[in-house]
């Protein structure tokens, strides 16, 4: 079937375009083992990685704390302005990252400038939609009838939520949390503006590149890719 073959060839260009840089960076790094080992002993890198993991984890937890209740309300209730709320939740996806940083600084100014709070604020803005939408979809997939039955058996609404809805939506919420975490740790543009310090690994990649060139920034990149891909495999 020539048509499908032609389409497959066209499509494989873009698949290769994504796959090749991933392979190349690992291969090149493999031939430069010493640099990778040296990087793993660089205190600055270790500190930055810790900062990244810490802030991304905090962001994911905060997203869950507020996103899960919001997701439940969006899944279970119809209310006036629901579509507006849903639209607001989806807005962060389309705003340029540097602009997100400016918006947050304009709004919260020195409260977030160059602090852990700033990093988390930037990450939260761009990644919270993933947690909210995953929770909403997770709760939508739980038959409301189950909660109804739990209530006729004597459970309050809150009890029915914790014993029925939450455990059943847990896998969806967990995978949403992982996506939130991955989106948070991938953010650069907004963090550069809001909180260059304390330095995160993704910012450090950029700094090493600017100061010492490609060879110096490559090992941190490989470590971050390794982490991201691990997350990604867990998710699937």
């Amino acid at each position, binding site marked *: 079937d020539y048509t499908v073959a032609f389409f497959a060839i066209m499509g494989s260009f873009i698949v290769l375009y994504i796959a090749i840089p991933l392979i190349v960076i690992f291969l090149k790094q493999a031939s430069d083992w010493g640099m990778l080992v040296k990087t793993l002993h660089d205190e600055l890198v270790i500190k930055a990685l810790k900062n990244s993991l810490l802030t991304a984890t905090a962001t994911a937890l905060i997203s869950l704390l507020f996103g899960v209740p919001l997701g439940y309300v969006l899944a279970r209730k119809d209310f006036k302005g629901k579509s507006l709320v849903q639209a607001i939740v989806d807005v962060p996806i389309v705003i340029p990252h540097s602009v997100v940083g400016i918006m947050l600084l304009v709004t919260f100014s020195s409260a977030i400038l160059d602090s852990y709070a700033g990093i988390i604020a930037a990450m939260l803005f761009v990644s919270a939609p993933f947690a909210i939408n995953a929770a909403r979809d997770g709760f939508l997939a739980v*038959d409301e*009838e*189950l909660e*109804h*039955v*739990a*209530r*006729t*058996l*004597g*459970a*309050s*609404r809150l*009890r029915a939520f914790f*014993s*029925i809805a939450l*455990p*059943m939506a847990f896998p969806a919420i967990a995978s949403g949390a992982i996506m939130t975490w991955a989106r948070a740790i991938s953010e650069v543009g907004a963090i550069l503006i809001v909180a260059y310090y304390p330095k995160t690994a993704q910012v450090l990649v950029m700094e090493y590149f600017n100061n010492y060139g490609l060879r110096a920034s490559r090992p941190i990149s490989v470590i971050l890719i390794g982490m991201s891909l691990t997350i990604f495999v867990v998710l699937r």
Partner: protein
Amino acid sequence: MLEVKSISKDWKEFKLREITFGVKAGEYFIILGPSGAGKTVLLEIITGILEPDSGKVILDGKDVTGWPPERRSLAYIPQNYALFPHMSVYDNIAFGLKLRRLPKEEIKRKVRDIAEVLGIDHLLHRKPKTLSGGESQRVAIARALVIEPKLLLLDEPFANLDVQTRARLIGEMKRWRKELGFTALHVTHSFEEAVSLGDRVGVMLSGRLVQVGSIREVFSRPANEEVARFLGFENIIEGFAKGRKLRTNGLEIELPVEVHGKVRVGLRPEDIILSLEPIRTSARNEFKATVEAVEELGPLVRVRLRARGLELSAFITRSSMLEIGIGKGKEVYVSFKASALHVF
């Protein structure tokens, strides 16, 4: 014990209108109606899942209309059983007891007791999705009955089961009722369930409760044409009666009783006999008719006929259709006994 007073509710495409009835303690009450009549909406109002637009639900003399479901001491078994998929059968059944903070030993004893009565004691460690339809339904009933509810509400409990399982469960339901002595409100579209289980029956049609009584009462004396149609009187003939003769659409029909004036009579399609030759006997009404359409219903065929101005619908078996060679346009003889007519 349960009183429902002029409940009205608009919910999605369903419109309940002024529904009033009562269930006595120990009674098994059946609400019989076609799908789409709003039976589930009514049950959800009684459980407290939905609020009525107007009307009251009274349980043991207390007005519970505004109460949340968890305070009503009912148990509800929805049509899909709604077993908690993330819990074992044991935890499903124990759910209501744990909420009541009973001691662990008592919970264990109660779960085992009810599981034994329902014949599911060997399933207690299993997860719901590994159960068959019949087993799931037993678990749902156990989970509902173990909390000793004032009233058990069942929504089409046997609709999704295969025939054998269904027949067995209907039989056992009678036994459980004797053994455990609960009060039940059961909604269904199945005449079989109504006949087998119901102490009393309410017929629900498009959001209204049209007739309440014993199944025999309802079936032999339908309150109106609508109920009659639902009970299978597909042919409703209108005309002027004079003694035992009914004139309609240029035909003269013999009636089973004497009446005068404008009347309606009902006739079941299965009481009409079709033949190629006239088979006149003294007891029969017989006319020549033309086949207008043929409609298969599994092993049965519905034949739509026209005799002068009168439209009739008759059931015959698929084999008779092929033997007589019935098809659109064919001329046949239609006959039925006077005693098959039901005068409203």
